[in-house]
């Protein structure tokens, strides 16, 4: 298994891919994010951890405006990707979601073949040539560390795959869009340790080309794969630091209590 430690030890600072500035998010009257400010580094893995309901999913859904689909929500503050405010009315949301891909907790492949799942996005965007689609499919599945397992059954239904394989199809589907940023909300929570390890290895490989943001309840997973970790509690960012620092010597007592299980 690959390890993220070596890269984060270098304390290599990369440019921020995303700037979140004093972000407040309301579901109706319920304040779910209370003034979050953080930068997400380019081509690094950033993990968000924290107790259930602290706002991790809300935050990552803000990054590709997935929350727009929910009734009665309100957002204040600002999120910039590559320097541009993504909530600017001039922004094309479809284009944004192409640049910021998302993978969910439960694998949700379409009831189509593996191949059709992966090339779905490019097809919608108008790519028609079979040779190009084939190429996209192979590249994305290779990136998602699934190619060798499925290359002989690309035209079988994705629903016939195991959970871990389905999740990697979903990751391949996200990558096939050539996003700049990949968001993953608890992508391994339904997977066994082997499938989890494969996805973790793949994430470390992915960050060569992509900025990765992962929400996880598995602190060991955050520790294994991420370069930076943010700890959230009740809609607030309590601590945000290099992962090795946060897990060996957190600066805030609330972080310490949470990660050592003295919380609650």
């Amino acid at each position: 298994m690959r390890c993220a430690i070596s890269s984060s030890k270098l304390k290599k600072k990369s440019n921020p891919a995303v700037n979140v500035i004093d972000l407040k998010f309301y579901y109706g009257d319920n304040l779910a994010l209370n003034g979050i400010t953080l930068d997400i580094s380019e081509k690094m893995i950033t993990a968000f951890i924290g107790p259930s309901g602290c706002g991790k999913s809300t935050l990552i859904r803000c990054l590709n405006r997935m929350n727009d689909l929910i009734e009665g929500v309100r957002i204040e503050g600002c999120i910039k990707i590559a320097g541009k405010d993504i909530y600017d009315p001039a922004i094309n949301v479809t284009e944004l979601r192409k640049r910021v891909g998302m993978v969910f907790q439960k694998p949700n492949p379409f009831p189509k073949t593996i191949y059709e799942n992966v090339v779905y996005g490019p097809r919608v965007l108008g790519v028609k040539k079979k040779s190009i689609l084939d190429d996209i499919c192979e590249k994305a599945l290779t990136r998602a560390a699934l190619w060798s397992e499925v290359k002989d059954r690309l035209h079988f239904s994705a629903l016939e795959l195991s959970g871990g394989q389905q999740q990697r199809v979903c990751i391949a589907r996200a990558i096939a869009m050539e996003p700049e940023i990949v968001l993953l909300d608890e992508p391994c929570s339904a997977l066994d340790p082997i499938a989890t390890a494969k996805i973790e290895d793949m994430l470390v490989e992915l960050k060569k080309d992509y900025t990765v943001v992962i929400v996880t309840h598995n602190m060991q997973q955050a520790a294994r794969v991420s370069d930076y970790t943010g700890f959230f509690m009740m809609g607030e960012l309590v601590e945000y630091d290099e992962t090795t620092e946060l897990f060996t010597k957190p600066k805030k007592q609330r972080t310490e209590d949470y990660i050592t299980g003295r919380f609650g």
Partner: protein
Amino acid sequence: MVREAYHKALKELQDDVLEMGKLVSQAIQSSIEALKTRDIETSKEIIKKDQEINRMRFDIEEKCIVLIATQQPLAVDLRTLTAILSIITDLERMGDHAEGNAKINIMIGEEPLIKPLVDIPRMGEIGIAMLEKSLKAFIERDVEAARRVCNEDDKVDALHDQIYHELLLLMMNNPKIIHLATYLTWVSHNLERIADRVTNIAERTVYMVTGEMEELNVSKY
């Protein structure tokens, strides 16, 4: 509070370290007492008891490994476990130094001491006091107390210098006692090493609490 069993196990491990420290401190104490009173039986006893110290070290180490494997400790808990692993190694070595003193006593055997022992017991007393303070600082997570312990190492170093020169003079004046004087320099050396290892315990304590590695006292030796 969640993870009660885990935190209880961590607490028990710290008690085990304290227990092991007591055995080591007793071993040092009686090794010097035996030397002073020419008590060969006690020295043999110390050598036997060192087995118990060694075994205890492995027991504690094993418990640490099991906790690391099963509980994935993080942050202060992780630092506590690594501190314990380091401290028990130092304690085990201190036990060996005490055992070394016991063996020297046996080697001296029936021969009379070449001088009344004053500075050597003094060194031992300071070392034992340092050991006890360092373990108290560890248990109480008292960084200031840990730092203070390290300053006392200078006294032990100074005594070691003094004893060494005194014994050198005795040897020059009377070559017949060279072997006996050499034995005593070994004892002094063992005690100097013990105090030095106490400073390691104090350094680990500071690391455990603050997360910072600090070299607190660079020994002369």
